[in-house]
């Protein structure tokens, strides 16, 4: 079944927030919880959307974009944090590189997939180990301010930051409706 052309509200706000923050490059490993974001970015000609094969590719693309004087965001499921951990650690600890990442919170309270719980269980310990400040974004009205502040925080601290999307700000799995 082809996905609907209509973007869900959270995805519209996410993409509007990127544009208002001056983001020009969106790199990602697509997944289901932020599906509308990937779909919307892929068809938006004002964004350079770069899908990759592995989350470990994302930090380099973000760093290169930053060093070019532009803004990038890396988008993934929280499981991708584990794949991307080595380049994130190197770019931050070795190069003090700003980097803004957005990830969906797989393993939220009520998760029904047995394979999804480890993502939530390992995410916060990894972010804390990497000393990466993060915020959970659960309400629609939080999306745009969070994106704007993420760039301020990352640029001035010379360090990655993470936004973790959940609640109203992700796709609702079919099993969770009603």
């Amino acid at each position: 079944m082809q996905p609907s052309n209509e973007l869900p509200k959270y995805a519209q706000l996410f993409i509007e927030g990127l544009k208002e923050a001056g983001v020009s490059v969106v790199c990602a490993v697509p997944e289901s919880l932020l599906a509308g974001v990937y779909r919307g970015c892929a068809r938006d000609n004002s964004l350079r959307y770069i899908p990759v094969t592995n989350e470990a590719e994302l930090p380099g693309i973000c760093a290169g974009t930053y060093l070019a004087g532009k803004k990038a965001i890396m988008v993934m499921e929280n499981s991708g944090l584990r794949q991307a951990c080595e380049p994130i650690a190197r770019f931050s600890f070795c190069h003090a590189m700003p980097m803004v990442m957005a990830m969906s919170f797989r393993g939220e309270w009520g998760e029904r997939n047995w394979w999804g719980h480890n993502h939530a269980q390992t995410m916060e310990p990894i972010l804390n180990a990497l000393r990466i400040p993060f915020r959970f974004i659960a309400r629609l009205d939080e999306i745009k301010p969070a994106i704007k502040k993420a760039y301020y925080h990352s640029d001035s601290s010379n360090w990655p930051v993470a936004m973790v999307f959940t609640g109203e700000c992700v796709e609702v799995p079919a099993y969770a409706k009603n």
Partner: protein
Amino acid sequence: MQRIEAIKAMAAVITKDDLLTTSIGQTWDDWWNHKPADNTFFTGILGSVSTTALGLAVSLPHRRIVAIESDGSVLLNTGVMCTLGKERPPNLTVVVMDNGIYENIGGPPTHTSAHTDLAKMAEGAGCVNCITARDIADFDRHFRRMLDDGEMGYLVAKIEPFARHPWEWKDRKATDGIEDKYRFLRYVEKLEGVVIHPGAVQN
């Protein structure tokens, strides 16, 4: 072909208007002594040299971008080839210094010393202009063409193992990763006439 020969050939045509990324390894000292300016981001992350160059290439499409890779770095993150093959940034040239060994740690072989062919892998991943150069004349000819042909290029330079140039300590790369970032960042600011990192905001 020795790596230092390939580096000298690159230095003969790279200008201060070009931007580069480089892999960790002996390439750092070789290129440190031949770079025309602070126009190189010495990437301290194996597997992230080409991705950093990709970010530069898509963001600065008017500028020639070169990634100086190593076989060890490419092998650590081969999916990047597929992303390069999809994006095909026309201003990007990837040069892989392929000596078939992990030279910095004493020389255990990489898979390119067995059966792995990086140029064929890149071609299969969708990259264009994928060439393996086995002598300096070939390398020089292909590198010059790839820089200016308006298409991406993927040039694998088969270089001699255990042929590191004996740089004296005073001539070895002296900077750390944070200084590398700032040198490169400030260089791009001047080159592009932009402010990337303004420092403190007074409010």
